[in-house]
């Protein structure tokens, strides 16, 4: 289901909101907007920390009038896989890795380390990852209340 949602996001849709998303990310980190390339890893290329992700999500919610539950990317990527099938002792399973590679299809395959620790998943996130998250939330409606931070 998630994978289907994912594949429905076109490059045109991503590029339509990319200018605004990149501005928001640049303002949050902060850094020059030119550095916020579509395929830039926010952690490895732009030096983001976990608190910056929270900050970015708050700003995206406000700018796009959507609710983005915390931890949304990983739970969406996991889809109907149980937590135990997705990860074992903090390491993403082969099945989990396969799911992630489809869900985060904007991330070049060589950036997925093996084994991949759950804690390192956010290092994969690029500007496009956030664009896609906003698009998914726009489609699912804006009334979803945000649960507590995870």
């Amino acid at each position, binding site marked *: 289901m998630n994978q289907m949602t994912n594949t429905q996001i076109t490059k045109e849709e991503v590029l339509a909101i990319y200018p605004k998303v990149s501005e928001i990310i640049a303002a*949050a980190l902060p850094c020059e907007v030119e550095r916020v390339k579509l395929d830039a890893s926010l952690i490895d290329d732009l030096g983001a920390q976990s608190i910056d992700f929270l*900050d970015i999500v708050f700003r995206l919610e406000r700018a796009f009038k959507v609710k983005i539950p915390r931890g949304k990317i990983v739970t969406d990527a996991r889809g109907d896989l149980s937590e135990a099938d997705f990860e074992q002792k903090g390491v993403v399973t082969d099945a989990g890795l396969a799911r992630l590679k489809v869900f985060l299809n904007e991330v070049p395959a060589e950036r997925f380390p093996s084994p991949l620790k759950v804690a390192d998943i956010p290092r994969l996130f690029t500007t496009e990852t956030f664009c896609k998250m906003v698009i998914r939330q726009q489609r699912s409606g804006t009334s979803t209340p945000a649960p507590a931070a995870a």
Partner: protein
Amino acid sequence: MKPRRRIAITGVGMVTPVGNDAPTTWSNLKAGRTGVGPISTFDANGFVTRIGAEVKNFSVEAAITDRNLLKFASRPTRFALAAAEEALTDAGIRPKPATARRWGLSVGAGMIGIDFAELEAVQTFCAADGEFNPDGLLDERYPADPVAFCRSQTNAGLGLLTHHFGIHGFATAVHTACASGGQALGTALKVLRRGHADFMLAGGYDSMLNPIGISGFCLLGALSTDNDSPERASRPFDATRNGFVLGEGAGFLVLEEWESAQARGAKIYAELAGDGNSLSSYRITDSHPSGDGPIQAMQQAMADAGLLPVDVDYVNAHGTSTLMNDRSECAALRAVMGSHIDRLAVSSTKSCMGHLIAAAGAVEAGVCALAIRDSIAPINANLVKPDPDCNVNIVQGQSRPLRIRSALSNSLGFGGSNSCLAFRHPEEIDLNAQPRITR
């Protein structure tokens, strides 16, 4: 028994209302130039006091280029980062991965960490009609900002300083109001003497120049209301004084063990020789008329440094310019110094830069270090008609050339916290503190 470690001041950094670095600040203090003016950072119309000692034309980016770090830095923390950077550069030594665990940090931090804009948002969304309604925090328009929350923690500055400068050793934040800066340096001295660190970055930073800070001190009647003559408003020990001037800023020192400082060829401003720390246990906002509290702090600092009254040539007074502080402090000075009080020079540099609250003790410690280095007792500006009840030898008219063998700096806080630091000229030898016992 090993002799007690002797501690050198090898770096000084300041951001103050009279200069955005230590040399500018010191030059203006010596000349008696004031940094007090109309409040410009917010609309102070409507307040009884509309003047303050603001830091002017300050840009932290000249000293700190890490923009992500600065996102988490409030105004006073930015002062701290700039002053600490100046102190480390001045000392010519800074933490490296190999020495990080032997570096410590001790800071005096401000009383109010939360930005006024955030408080205002809570009021707008949660208490628009007077009654507090916490559901307003969930209002879609409420500017929820997790970064603002991080920025407003009272220990935020401590975290940013250790992170930015790579300090991995002992670290602590002191919150004793106006005594914070002095007590942070006293804590650093003790940590170094005990051998828990070999280098300490120590200081204080604060800014209460916001509507909450101004209104609070106005309510207490503690601030000068001389809105029409701001440059004369802070006049410690003058018979016409009518309150203090709220200031803002930061001061940092680099402290290190004496022999290793000499071995690396560091310039040594002065020895940080003694620390006195007491609580008046009297009243929340009053000082004891007899000077009880400050007396014990000064006596402790002198005993710690091995000083007798006759050894002291200069006292940088707390000297806030309130009726009560200045009288009580002079009573304490007379009680501690006896007949020598008439021969030692006293001045309050708050006459030029206002009261920097949690930063005051740290900046004034830096002033003492520079006064010793240059053999100058800085002027107590704006003193025209000395209060007969402040009968001490105040540096009036102009700064006084004076070889200072040793100096004291007082910082007397709200709630009764008292700090006194003792400084010694680097060429003076401690004769009275034997035997020295240490681990």
